[in-house]
């Protein structure tokens, strides 16, 4: 008897293609995404080199030589920029850091003094920064450290052993280069790379983790809510009220836009409630830039609502919508940084993230709460969200006529 029940249930289960898809495809997709996100892919595929801005104010043979050494590394690509422009680009999140060699870099090497060099970085790109720091320290210390020690020893020999045979002096320096004297590990003594976050830790600004949690979760949940609201159209189709709406003088697009307007209003309300809650409970500084926040909420609400409508327009029934929206929203959220912060993902995953609505929304909120950028610098991200919204609306309109209006 149990076997009979088992057979029947398995037969029923496998006849539900959407159910099977959700059971197997969904976890496979998510595992793949998370594996990429955490860098757990097989093989030894090389990741793209990190782009590091450099501002060589010293502009001497020594500073150029150190930069040439760095540029020869496969993990780093150097991009020379003027210091202010470079700092601005890092502040806007375009590059991870800028390495600055200040005036007196060469003189300090010769004098064996502390070096006037600084690494200004974007703390929102923690993983890239960690990788960069490791490579940078090793190379800088190797190249600059030897120069400094040689310089100090030359000065010492000149003062105390001026009569030393030049051949012996050369032999000592050669052995140093091949590290036979074992100074490699101590070469960095007295050498510091000043690390400065371009975004000043400020009590008025938000905490990076909190911003990630609020913006990431808010946008993901918003997508689910909007898919559910849009699903009301499919319910209306099944209940027959959509047909009755079409008997009336309403145009089909009126129905779609009416539903979309509802979705936008609910989205705005949902985002406002989430931000106010985060302000009250977690001290998220929502009043830091009210105009930017309002515009960002509007742009996000529009993009997310249009995307929700797109999901509704491609589905033919409520059941289909549930399956589709779960898969697509989870994927978008995973790629776009709602589920895993983008800054801990490999660089190539960060590049893929731009296809997701979540990415543009989260980055926009980062710009407001973390980077503290002026409105003019956030406008491009809002523009992308509006573009996504318009594109999705146009596609939805076409699909709406094709799928939803096939009533008989």
């Amino acid at each position, binding site marked *: 008897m149990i076997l009979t029940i088992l057979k029947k249930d398995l037969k029923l289960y496998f006849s539900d293609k959407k159910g099977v898809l959700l059971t197997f495809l969904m976890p496979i997709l998510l595992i793949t995404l998370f594996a990429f996100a955490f860098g757990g892919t097989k093989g030894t595929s090389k990741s793209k080199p990190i782009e590091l801005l450099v501002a060589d104010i010293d502009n001497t043979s020594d500073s150029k030589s150190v930069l040439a050494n760095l540029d020869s590394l496969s993990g780093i690509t150097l991009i020379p920029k003027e210091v202010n422009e470079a700092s601005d680009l890092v502040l806007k999140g375009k590059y991870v850091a800028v390495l600055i060699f200040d005036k007196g870099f060469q003189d300090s090497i010769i004098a064996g003094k502390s070096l006037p060099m600084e690494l200004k970085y974007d703390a929102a790109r923690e993983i890239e920064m960690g990788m960069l720091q490791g490579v940078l320290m090793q190379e800088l210390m190797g190249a600059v450290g030897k120069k400094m020690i040689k310089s100090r020893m030359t000065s010492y020999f000149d003062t105390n052993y001026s009569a030393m045979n030049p051949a012996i002096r050369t032999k000592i320096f050669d052995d140093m280069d091949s590290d036979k004297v074992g100074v490699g590990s101590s070469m960095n003594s007295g050498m510091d790379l000043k690390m400065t976050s371009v975004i000043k830790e400020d009590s008025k600004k938000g905490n990076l983790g909190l911003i990630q949690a609020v913006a990431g979760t808010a946008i993901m949940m918003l997508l689910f809510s909007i898919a559910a609201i849009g699903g009301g159209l499919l319910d209306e189709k099944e*209940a*027959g*009220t959509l047909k*009755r709406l079409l*008997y*009336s*003088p*309403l145009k089909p697009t009126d129905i779609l836009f009416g539903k979309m307007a509802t979705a936008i209003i609910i989205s705005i309300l949902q985002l406002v409630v989430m931000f106010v809650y985060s302000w009250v409970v977690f001290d998220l500084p929502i009043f830091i830039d009210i105009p930017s926040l309002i515009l960002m909420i509007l742009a996000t609400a529009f993009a997310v609502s249009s995307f929700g409508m797109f999901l509704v327009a491609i589905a033919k029934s409520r059941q289909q919508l549930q399956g589709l929206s779960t898969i697509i929203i989870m994927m978008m959220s995973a790629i776009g940084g709602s589920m895993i912060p983008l800054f801990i993902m490999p660089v190539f995953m960060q590049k893929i993230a731009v296809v997701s609505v979540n990415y543009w929304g989260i980055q926009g909120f980062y710009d407001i709460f973390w980077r503290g950028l002026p409105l003019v610098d956030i406008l491009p991200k809002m523009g992308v969200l509006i573009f996504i919204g318009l594109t999705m609306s146009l596609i939805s309109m076409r699909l709406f006529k094709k799928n939803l209006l096939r009533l008989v």
Partner: protein
Amino acid sequence: MIQVNNLSKSFDDIKAVKDISFTINRGEVFGFLGPNGAGKSTTLNMMSTIVNGDNGTIFIDGYDLSNHQNVCKQLIGVVPQEISLYDEFTAYQNLQFWGSLYKVPKTELKNKISEILKLIGLYDRKDDLIKTYSGGMKRRINIASALLHNPKVLFMDEPTVGVDPQSRNRIFEIVEALNKQGITIVYTTHYMEEVERLCNRIAIIDDGKIIAQGTKSELQKQSGVKEMVEICFKQISEKQLDGLRENLKLNIIKNENCLAIECDANKELSKIITASNSLDLEIVDLELKKANLEAVFLNLTGKQLRD
């Protein structure tokens, strides 16, 4: 009021409506009678603007539907087969919403809602949620929702599906009341008794084609179906049968001790009984077989309406 010429509609390879033409006069109740899948709803959907025909023309109150869709939408009200209401709204809220789509001014709409709720006998329940209504009550609100903008024509697509006999009667009364107010009604159904009770003229539709149309008596004539009296005797001899034939002058078919007599029962029944008595025939059973639409449909299509 409505003029349909050579209307056709196909869905992929299925020809749902095949070159049909008919006229519906102002103020009449016009019935579309046919089995499920005959093409009634598709025809209604084309007349109510939500499906475009492949060929043919539809004129409503003189307006060509293909060129004056918005005008036609204001002229018609549609009662769909499904109960198309919002369960979470009250009856009043539903009516207010559906009325507002036709831009009926607020005060006028308020008065109209009250008037219609009284007509359908649900004024006292106007503030109850639709989900608390019985099936029959929902059907009545479904009808009311189509009347708020004072349509000249009301399309009713099987408005009594799934309702109890009492509610069905109530709906019939509503239809009759609306018709008395001057509204032209187009009524689709596969229930003969509804058409017989409500409709002035009828179109019988089957397999996408109108196979006959006219008043009930015109359809009877077209189909050749006549009323019959079926009478059975304890015993009947050939002599007695000849006597009856001579006396009644009617078409009589004998089957053992029973006779099927084609006649107008109202006029001839008493004459048949008197003649039988005069010939000492003992009647054991008597049945009146009316020439109803069921028989007409059977005769015209060769199949039962509910096949």
